[in-house]
Every structure is written in C-alpha cells, then in structure tokens.
C-alpha cells in the first residue's frame, strides 16, 4: 500500500547577515526505505530529534522531500504538484505531536470538525455534518455539547482526542500518528488504542505510529523501525525487535525504559555521551561515539542494513561480517 524508497529530507542551515547562504544541511531524514501494508501498523521509535516527525510529515507530503520515492497505492507522489495531490489529501491524515498547535484557537471544535467533512463532500450539509461529528466525539470519549467550545477550554488529553477525531473523520487509508496518546492517562490511552485498532479494522488503514512510549509501541505495532540520526538502524516484527534487540542503540533504549515500581531504579547511565549533533554526524556508524561495542571499522564505514533473520534487519558491524 505504501512503499517508501530512499526518502530524504534535508533542511538548509543558513548563515551570514546580508548575504544569506547555505552553510550546511540538517539531514533530518536521510535515506529511509520502508513498506507498510494495509491494515498494518508501523511503529517508529528513536531519540528526540532523530527525524521521526519530519519523516511522517514528508511521507504525507506536508513537507517536500529532498529525494526519494513515496509510492502510495501504486502512484509515486513524491514529486506531485499540489493540485495533483488533492485526491490523496483525504486519504492521508496526521495527528500532530503538539495538539494545541494544530488546532485553530479561534475555531470551535464543531466548525473545525465539519470543515473537512463539507470540503470533501463526506457530509452533504451542515446538519449531516453535525450528526457525524456527534458520533465521532462520542467515539473518542467526548460529549456532543463540546462542539461549541474552543481548544483552550479543553484539557491536554481532550485536545489530543479532538485531533484524533479530526483525522479519522475523513476515513483515510493512511494515518501518521505522532505521539497520539502521550497526553492521556493509562485508562483513556487503552480506550484510544482500542479505538484506533477498531478503526483500522473498519477502514483497513495503515498507521505510522510514532511514540516514545515503548510499551504502547509494543502493543499496537506489527512492525517497528528504530531511527538514529535520520536513518533506520533496526527493523523487524515487533516481537523480534523487543525480544531480541540487536542494535546496541535499541538495546540501550529498551534498558532505559522506566518501570512502574518505586523500588526499582532504571539504569540511567546507559548511554554515554550527550545527544549527537545532526549537522556534524560522526564518521562511520553514527552511533559509534556512544557504543560500547565499537570496533575499528565502526569509525570508518557506515554499516550496511542487512537482514539477519527473517524480516529482521540491522545496520551494525556486529552482525555484518
């Protein structure tokens, strides 16, 4: 359904006061390839700033890719012009990480939700839109009387559910979910995840699920990709990756996950060194300055992304001899 090949998104870094010029690039997404089938959830995990949101936005063409292919239902949409993209717009939706910034502060929830319904002809008139919206709000656990309120009158978790309602309202076939449950308590989180699963069955939609909550990623994803500095360093079925993590970064991540027990303290010194610098990435394997298994070759070459077991790929010299 969705096939991404060698996708790149670079942001120029400018300098100079009078004559601005590009002095370097932030390679936010640097050569990512992945495939998602309908009905499948691809979990995307990785350090803050490694390029997950940029990847998600580029895939649905909210950002123009620097290079690469995005094959959506058999069509490469990577280079399509805005007017040719229109038929794809309803099919691809995103729930943003920062719900407040994606909701128009001057629009009521009702207006915000009815706009896309009317625009894309999903509802014929206001009345029909209202009915659909009532159902949607109910589904995400809000009330029909909430339609007349403005975003600032809601709690963080309520706003996140409004963003989810808006994304599913147009019945898309691909949804990028960027931290969709981070502002929710565990009970509502469970409810929303169950809802997302149910909608997926209904629409046969594919999800790209970005989250720092490894427990949630483990639960909802079929496959996961671990990103580090713009590249995917490990990928596989969710159980393969969580039960048999291979890349030293994946291992560190899993070990750093906090556990709900006040008597257990997690290992906080797991990752030596500060967060990496996106502009001056290290030579060789990007993870090498922090890796305790570092070998000579790791400082010279970038490891190839190879399949180690069925469908389980990793970019690390420990597995690539």
């Amino acid at each position, binding site marked *: 359904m969705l096939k991404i090949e060698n996708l790149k998104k670079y942001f120029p*870094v400018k300098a100079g006061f009078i004559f601005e010029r590009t002095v370097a690039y932030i390679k936010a997404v640097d050569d990512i390839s992945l495939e998602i089938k309908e009905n499948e959830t691809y979990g995307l995990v990785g*350090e*803050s*700033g490694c390029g997950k*949101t*940029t990847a998600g936005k580029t895939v649905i063409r909210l950002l123009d890719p620097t290079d690469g292919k995005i094959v959506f239902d058999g069509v490469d949409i990577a280079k399509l012009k805005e007017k040719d993209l229109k038929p794809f717009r309803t099919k691809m939706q995103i729930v943003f*990480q*920062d719900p*407040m*910034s994606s909701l128009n502060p001057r629009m009521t929830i009702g207006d915000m939700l009815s706009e896309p319904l009317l625009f894309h002809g999903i509802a014929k008139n206001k009345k029909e839109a209202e009915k659909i919206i009532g159902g949607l709000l109910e589904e995400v*656990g809000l009330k029909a*009387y909430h339609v*007349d*309120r403005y975003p600032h*009158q*809601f*709690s*963080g*978790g*309520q706003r996140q559910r409004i963003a989810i309602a808006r994304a599913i309202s147009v019945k898309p076939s691909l949804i990028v979910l*960027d*931290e969709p449950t*981070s*502002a*929710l*308590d*565990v*009970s*509502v*989180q*469970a*409810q929303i995840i*169950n809802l997302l699963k149910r909608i997926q069955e209904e629409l046969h939609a594919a999800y790209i699920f970005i989250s*720092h909550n*490894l*427990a*949630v990623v*483990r*639960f909802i994803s079929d496959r996961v990709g671990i990103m580090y500095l713009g590249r995917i360093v490990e990928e596989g079925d969710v*159980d393969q990756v*969580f039960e048999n993590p291979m890349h030293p970064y994946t291992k*560190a*991540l899993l070990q*750093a*996950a*906090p*556990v*709900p*027990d*006040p008597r*257990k*303290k*997690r290992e*906080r010194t*797991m990752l030596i060194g*500060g*967060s*990496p610098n*996106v*502009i001056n990435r290290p030579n060789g394997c990007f993870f090498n300055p922090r890796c305790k298994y570092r070998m000579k070759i790791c400082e010279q070459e970038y490891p190839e992304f190879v399949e180690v077991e069925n469908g389980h790929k990793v970019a690390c010299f420990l597995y690539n001899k």
Partner: protein
Amino acid sequence: MPDRKEPILIVENLKTYFEQAEGTVKAVDGVSFDLKPDEVIGIVGETGSGKSVTVKSIMRLIYPPGRIADGKILFKTDEFSPGNPQYVDITKLSEEQMTRIRGKHISMVFQDPMTSLNPMFTIEDQMIETIMFHRKVDENQAREIALEMLHKVKIPDPERRLKDYPFQLSGGQRQRVVIAIALSCNPEVLIADEPTTALDVTVQAQILELMESLQKEFHTSIIFITHDLAVIAEVANKVMVMYGGKTVEYADVFTIFENPIHPYTNSLLNCIPRVDVKQDSLSPIPGQPPVILNAPPVCPFLPRCNFRTKRCEEELPGLVEVSPGHYVRCFEEIIEKLFVSTRGGQK
C-alpha cells in the same frame, strides 16, 4: 538553609470553577496537599480530572469565566517581608504581587510546549528576556545563563540552537527549551506539567536526573504531573491521585504503589501497559468517566465503583487519614473493607 519540616506550599480544599452556558464546570473541586522544601510530589489522574487547572490556579493563571471559588494556597516566601519568610495566600494576592512570585519563586513548564514559546522570536530572545526580567543581570550574563541552561538540558549544539525559531526544533527539543527557561531563575517551586512525555526514554532519564540534581543543589520543590506512572515511581516522594476534580488518595510513593486503597487508584495501577511483557489487550477502566458539568455532590467515582453502597449515592465522602500521611476519600466503613480486600491480596 530552608526549614525542612515546614511546607513551602500548602493547598487546602482548592476549588476552581468555570461558568459555561451549559452550567458550572467544577474542574477542581476539593484538592489538598502540601509540599516541603526538597520534596517532589507527583500528581496523577484521569485526563480532564483537573491536574492542569490545579497548578494553573497555583500560578494564578485562571481567567474569567473561570475563578478560584474556594480554598487556600499558602506559599511561604520572603518576597514581601525580606529576611523573614511568611505564608501568603496566593488566592488573595493582587496581580502586581503575583508577578513578583510567578517565574521567580514558582515557575512552570506547560503541558503544550508550543503555547509557552512565541513563534515569532528566536530561542535566544525569549530566554534572555525571561532571565533579565527575573534576575539582576545584563544581556551578556543572561546569554551566558541561557547557554548554560541549554547545555544542562542536553540540547545538542546549543550555540546554534539559540538562533533558531521554535518551529525549527523537534518536539523534544522544544520541550527541553521550555524546561531550561523554567529552571533558569532557580525557582523554589517548579511545576512541571507533563514535562517528559515528548522525550525519548534516554533523554527523559537525563532530564529527570537534571531535575533531581537541581533539587539537591537548590532545594527546589517540584510538582510533577504525568500520566507515566513509571516516571512517578522513579521521581516522586509522594503522590496525589485526582479523580473528577478531587483528591481521592494522597500518600508517599511506596504506599501508593504497594498499598493503594482507593478503588480508582487500584484500577489505574491495573491498566499500566508494560514493555517487558507481550499483552493481547489493554483494558480501560470500565464504565463512564465522571460528570464534572453540574457535578452532583457525591463521590465522582460512583458510576464506576464496585464497592459502592447506598451511602455513596447520598453523601460526599471527605478525605480520611487512614494512617499517618495516607489520605483516602471514601467512607470509613468502606475503607475498612477495602483494607481487607487490598491487603488480602485479592487485588
């Protein structure tokens, strides 16, 4: 040296209401806790249970049609009586007095980092402005402090980041900038509303470490709101559990995790998803969430509670101190039964 025994902040039966066309939203309706120097209190509870409104009330950031309807927020400070710290009631301060408290003595990291950053200004401008407003430093010193704080929150390449606009940062980077701003004035109380949800687990660990070291160094007290119970288990000394605008249980962190009594606390702990095991389903707490619009004066957990009795439908239970420092909002005769059921290992 601050007095270790006397709380720096005491919140007593706080009530904050919003008047809406459909009726009164009792967002906060009976919240009590206190905070001593050096302490970290975790606030947990359902989405919409009033956590953010509670802390916004402490910052006096409630605007009409909202109002603090009842209760006290006592803060110990020498801002108005130099050298001689005294309790002032924040609910009664003038706006002018409040600007001397906000940001300087009590600062806050908001849930939505974008709302506290101005999209039109660079990170540098915003940090320098805040620092110069609260501390007696010139622009160069303020820039030094800003840089040092960005280093402390582990922003890679901070010199360059200072020149960036908020949209050029990733979600987690923005969050760290906001934390850096809040910490740059060495507040006595730091309020952090979901400060680490946008961060991956390794950066999260670093930020928590940073908060802990600041707390040791400056005796900062912290109010920490998060849905991540694993984080609460890691950082908090005590925990207040909220439901439907009310404090329903309040105790030290070990008691909350090991011997919780309130039925809501028990249900909450039962739905934590885990990384270390494969789960086939996640179970939300069954039943309807509480009504907070024109809420009836009964226990908010009533519609979902398996232990409810006739009395629960008629009266509102108060906070009962079941053992020193452990408070539960439920009726005494029921608490006794809950005691047996939770200690008997059935839950």
